[in-house]
């Protein structure tokens, strides 16, 4: 089937301008499209939704859409694997706050998107995925490259559509963007049978019923929250990813300043509180700071804002903040009481609720106590030896980076070191696969970020295991010549798994040895990306400077000790004050 148009190379720099008729207003006042096919309509509608960049990979069933893209002003980024396309769209969305869009063909193309959909689902990222599907006439016949994508999507999307008529397209696309971006954001899939992409539409654009904005919580509940806050002796602010998603960073900071309470954040909440804030104790949870975990255990009131008492945060749930009353703010009602019963639950827009409950809490003694803990348990970077100490390298790198740098990372020990030792001025500057913990996220997410924030530096911190999961995206990086700086922390191990084997499986290091890794610099060179390797601590400063001074993409390969572990660590089944601390 795929006898693709091989000679269709179009010059990269001179994209032909769209020759399509512009949309007109019909008599009824609706916007009408003079599109000649469903595919053209889709492209037009994406442009109307402010989408200027999409990530994808072509194939049989989706070819009509690629044909419509050919002469459109839309920037299509050809990734080298559909998972790369989905993760880049997620990175694009996370760094910019706009919806990300990815495209794949039916069957294997669509199934390759699934991990990216799950990624967006678990981290609540607005993503619209368009997949080709076999023609409606053969749906359900196990046709070539037919997969029941609607069925597959159920567990990994907020919503999904299988379009059954070309005239449905306006409403479906409208709804897809609204659903992806409203309330608690998430991924939406649109499955597009090939004949529908080719069919001629006859419909006008109907504006779709807008989701009314969420009402404010009951005045009584707000009052109860204010009373709890003003009476608390040891209040604690616990902020999660929902703050950034709701664009409520300013409101959160004002709330903190007004109440004067100390604060902790989740992995996804990093950047929502300015790192220098008095009483800010950093990340809590499994690899959180001692100060954050100890203080949360002691607090008498926990104000949870856009977070969900995730198991990585709470450790043993019944031992988490045992003496605390809980005020829980979230856009998603299903989070209330899912893991911890709140005393006051406030559903709605964080931007409006936070100011409504900001009252002074007289907690100066407790503030001081928290600040003293922050000082007592501050990070130490003077590890012995001459090999590179990854936490120190990341801390030095962080200090050298411009304030608005986007840092993406992969999953494992290096991910936790990024969260612990780098600082972030805004949540959208820290792209980390939190909910799903997807190895292979870092590089494509950095590509998406670099495209959505072309004026900002983008760094990707990866591990030698993770980088290989989407290594093909180095081609995309090179093709676009994006100046992403990759820092590969190479311990020749699946470090995080090895660490758990060391600590909890009697040191039986089953299948975590990667000492036969490829020559990473040779590999990067093969992709046209230059770089260098460092082995010794004394080489680090120069290497970081060289990397940051380089023009295009750069690959810094850092050999680190295989035995390094992430500390502190709350072991499985333990409460958060029972942290292990190693060397």
């Amino acid at each position: 089937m795929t006898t693709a148009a091989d000679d269709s190379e179009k010059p990269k720099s001179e994209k032909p301008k769209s020759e399509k008729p512009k949309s007109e207003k019909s008599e009824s006042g609706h916007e009408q499209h003079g599109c000649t096919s469903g595919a053209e309509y889709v492209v037009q509608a994406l442009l109307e939704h402010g989408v200027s960049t999409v990530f994808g990979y072509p194939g049989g069933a989706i070819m009509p859409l690629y044909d419509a893209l050919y002469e459109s002003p839309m920037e299509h980024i050809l990734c080298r694997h559909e998972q790369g396309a989905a993760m880049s769209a997620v990175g694009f969305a996370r760094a910019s706050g706009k919806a990300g869009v990815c495209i794949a063909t039916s069957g294997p193309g669509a199934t390759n998107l699934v991990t990216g959909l799950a990624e967006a689902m678990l981290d609540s990222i607005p993503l619209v995925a368009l997949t080709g599907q076999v023609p409606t006439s053969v749906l359900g016949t196990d046709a070539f490259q037919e997969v029941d994508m609607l069925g597959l999507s159920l567990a990994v999307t907020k919503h999904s559509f299988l379009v059954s008529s070309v005239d449905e397209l306006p409403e479906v696309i409208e709804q897809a963007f609204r659903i992806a971006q409203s309330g608690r954001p998430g991924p939406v899939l649109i499955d597009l049978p090939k004949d529908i992409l080719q069919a001629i539409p006859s419909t006008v654009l109907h504006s779709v019923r807008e989701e009314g904005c969420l009402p404010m919580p009951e005045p009584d509940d707000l009052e109860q929250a204010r009373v709890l806050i003003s009476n608390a002796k040891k209040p604690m602010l616990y902020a999660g990813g929902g703050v950034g998603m709701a664009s409520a960073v300013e409101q959160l900071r004002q709330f903190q300043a007004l109440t004067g309470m100390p604060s902790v954040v989740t992995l996804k909440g990093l950047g929502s509180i300015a790192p220098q804030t008095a009483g800010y104790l950093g990340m809590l949870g499994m690899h959180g700071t001692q100060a954050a975990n100890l203080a949360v255990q002691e607090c008498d009131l926990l104000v949870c804002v856009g977070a969900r008492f995730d198991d990585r945060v709470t450790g043993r749930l019944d031992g988490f903040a045992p003496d605390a009353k809980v005020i829980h703010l979230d856009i998603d009602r299903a989070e209330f009481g899912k893991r911890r019963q709140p005393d006051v639950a406030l559903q709605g827009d964080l931007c409006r609720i936070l100011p409504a409950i900001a009252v002074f809490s007289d907690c100066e003694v407790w503030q001081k106590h928290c600040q003293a803990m922050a000082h007592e348990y501050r990070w130490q970077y003077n590890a012995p030896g001459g090999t590179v100490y990854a936490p120190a390298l990341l801390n030095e790198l962080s200090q050298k980076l411009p304030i608005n740098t986007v840092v993406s990372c992969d999953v494992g020990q290096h991910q936790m070191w990024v969260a612990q030792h780098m600082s972030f001025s805004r949540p959208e500057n820290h792209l980390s696969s939190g909910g799903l913990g997807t190895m292979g996220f870092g590089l494509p997410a950095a590509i998406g970020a670099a495209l959505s924030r072309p004026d900002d530096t983008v760094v990707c911190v990866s591990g030698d295991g993770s980088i290989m999961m989407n290594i093909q995206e180095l081609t995309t990086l090179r093709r676009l010549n994006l100046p992403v700086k990759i820092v590969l922390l190479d311990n020749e191990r699946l470090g995080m798994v090895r660490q758990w084997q060391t600590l909890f499986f009697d040191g039986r290091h089953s299948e975590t040895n990667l000492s036969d890794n490829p020559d990473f610099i040779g590999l990067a060179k093969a992709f046209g990306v230059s770089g260098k390797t460092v082995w010794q601590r004394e080489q680090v400063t120069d290497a970081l400077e060289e990397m940051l001074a380089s023009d295009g993409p750069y690959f810094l390969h850092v050999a680190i000790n295989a035995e390094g572990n992430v500390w502190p660590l709350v072991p499985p089944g333990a409460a958060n004050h029972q942290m292990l601390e190693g060397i």
Partner: protein
Amino acid sequence: MNTLSDSNNSFHSLFIHTANRPAILERVLRVVRHRGYTLCSLSMPESDSGDASIYMQVRGLNPDQLLRQLEKLVDVHNVALLNEEQEVLRA
């Protein structure tokens, strides 16, 4: 989860008012299973309108939690827990 009581781990009758879209039943049943509830009975009377009514009985803890997860389905208009009297009325 929350404080569990025996009365919680019994039958709960739910009524779901939803847009009648393809896959709606799959979506509802997936949530029921994934969130740890057991389906005991289900009926979805035929309807001419674009909407559908689903009645079901499930076994599991904390039916409120299930309710809130079901409410998040885009096609679902509303979900209610039926008490015994309402059930009798229905029957």
